[in-house]
């Protein structure tokens, strides 16, 4: 009788607790990350945990290390010291494991970096076929679905140079999503765009956030941060200076450095 109650209680409580734990588990876990370029100390003791489904906006002055942080997360740059775990798995140093990690972490660049010699469709199909071993037919179906999702289905057969900047960036997002990544990194995805095209890219990102994607977004778009971010991380001089919920951060930053930075950005 006693044992039965325990079991009963266990079943009842184990499930939701377990689920809650899963949900809170850090998708990205950065601990004591340092990075040097020569003797230039670019990242200093970075600790950053991003929960599954969380959207973190990284903001900070030029040269503060935002891009380097992103690039360390998928190991386009090697970390100097410290630990980076993606979904509980430490970032491998090289080889097959590293390729798998990169495949799990999608990255969108400021300059789009679509493969210039391939059509939009082929851009999206390449990695799923070569890295994941997906069949051509399946890769094409996924690619067309994604193109529809980012609103450029009719551009599938064009070369990147024939697309507008906004369309190129949306294609680049589709290309990253085709790998079904666990995490998406965005490094200033709208900074190279004409103002009238920023919105269409941000809309795609907001939708992605709403769909539950774990995202780290380097951007100075306050509107996006307010609409979609769970947290804003403010970096300066290689350090995380302040972390706050978006509205709190923009309305009442607690550090002088963040206040100064916001004053400069908001007056422009």
């Amino acid at each position, binding site marked *: 009788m006693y044992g039965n109650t325990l079991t009963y209680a266990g079943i009842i409580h184990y499930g939701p607790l377990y689920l809650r734990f899963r949900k809170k588990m850090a998708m990205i876990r950065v601990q004591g990350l340092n990075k040097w370029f020569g003797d230039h100390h670019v990242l200093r003791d970075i600790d950053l945990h991003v929960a599954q489904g969380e959207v973190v906006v990284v903001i900070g002055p030029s040269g503060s290390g935002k891009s380097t942080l992103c690039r360390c997360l*998928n190991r*386009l740059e090697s970390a100097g010291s410290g630990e980076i775990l993606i979904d509980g798995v430490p970032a491998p140093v090289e080889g*097959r494991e590293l*390729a*798998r990690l*990169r*495949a799990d*972490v*999608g*990255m969108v*660049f400021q*300059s789009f*970096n*679509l*493969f*210039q*010699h391939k059509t939009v469709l082929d851009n999206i199909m*390449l*990695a799923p076929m*070569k*890295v*994941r071993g997906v069949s051509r037919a399946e890769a094409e179906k996924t690619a067309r679905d994604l193109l529809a999702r980012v609103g450029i289905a009719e551009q599938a057969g064009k*070369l990147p*140079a*024939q697309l507008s900047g906004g369309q190129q960036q949306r294609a*680049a997002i589709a*290309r*990253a999503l085709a*790998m079904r990544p666990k995490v998406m990194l965005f490094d200033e995805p709208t900074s190279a765009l004409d103002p009238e095209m920023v919105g269409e890219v941000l809309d795609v990102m907001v939708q992605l956030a709403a769909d539950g994607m774990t995202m780290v977004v380097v951007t100075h778009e306050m509107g996006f941060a307010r609409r979609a971010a769970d947290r804003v991380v403010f970096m300066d001089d290689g350090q995380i200076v302040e972390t706050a919920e978006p509205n709190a951060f923009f309305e009442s930053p607690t550090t002088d450095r963040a206040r100064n930075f916001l004053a400069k950005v908001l007056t422009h």
Partner: protein
Amino acid sequence: MSALLDHLPEFWQGLIVTLQLTAASFAGAAVMGLVIAAMRVSPVPVLRGIGTAYVETLQNLPLLVLLVLAVFGLPEIGLQAGLQVTATVVIALYEGAYIAEALRSGVNAVSSGQGEAARALGLNFTQSLRHVVLPQALRTVIQPIGNIFIALTMNTSLAAAVGVVELTAAANRVNLLEAQPIPIFVGAGVAYAVIAACAGFVTGRLERRLAVVR
């Protein structure tokens, strides 16, 4: 003129050998150039070192010296091969260094973001080179590689010096019989020029067809 016409079979035979030398050694040089270029841009320092040493060595020796060394040196160490085969291999290795350098400059002309995006998607070094970087690099070096092809064609005449009877050697033999160097060597020169013109035509076509839209 009759000196030429009387000896058409010899010229024809020489031309065939020249074309064989050119085609086979260019194919070999292309493969060698691809391998060496890949080594020179690879992330592995040892491979980069080997690639650099290869290019520096072969570009700094005259082809004639290499041909003579191979033809007379290889039998010394027990390696016997026909003259034409030896010449083909030496020319391929030699021109491979030039093709490697042309390809490397093409790879450097592809923006680094292209390779980075490929790696960020999980493609490994070989895959990003093969599917992303090289196809774009090749388009920018069609003209230089066409020029290397033409230089290689002309360089096959050095094989005459080690006893391969290609076009130049054939012309030389005919001249020994007829003693009419001007028409005979003009005839041989025209044949080389026709090969070069064909190469120029093909590279021009390729370049227009494959131009990268940026």
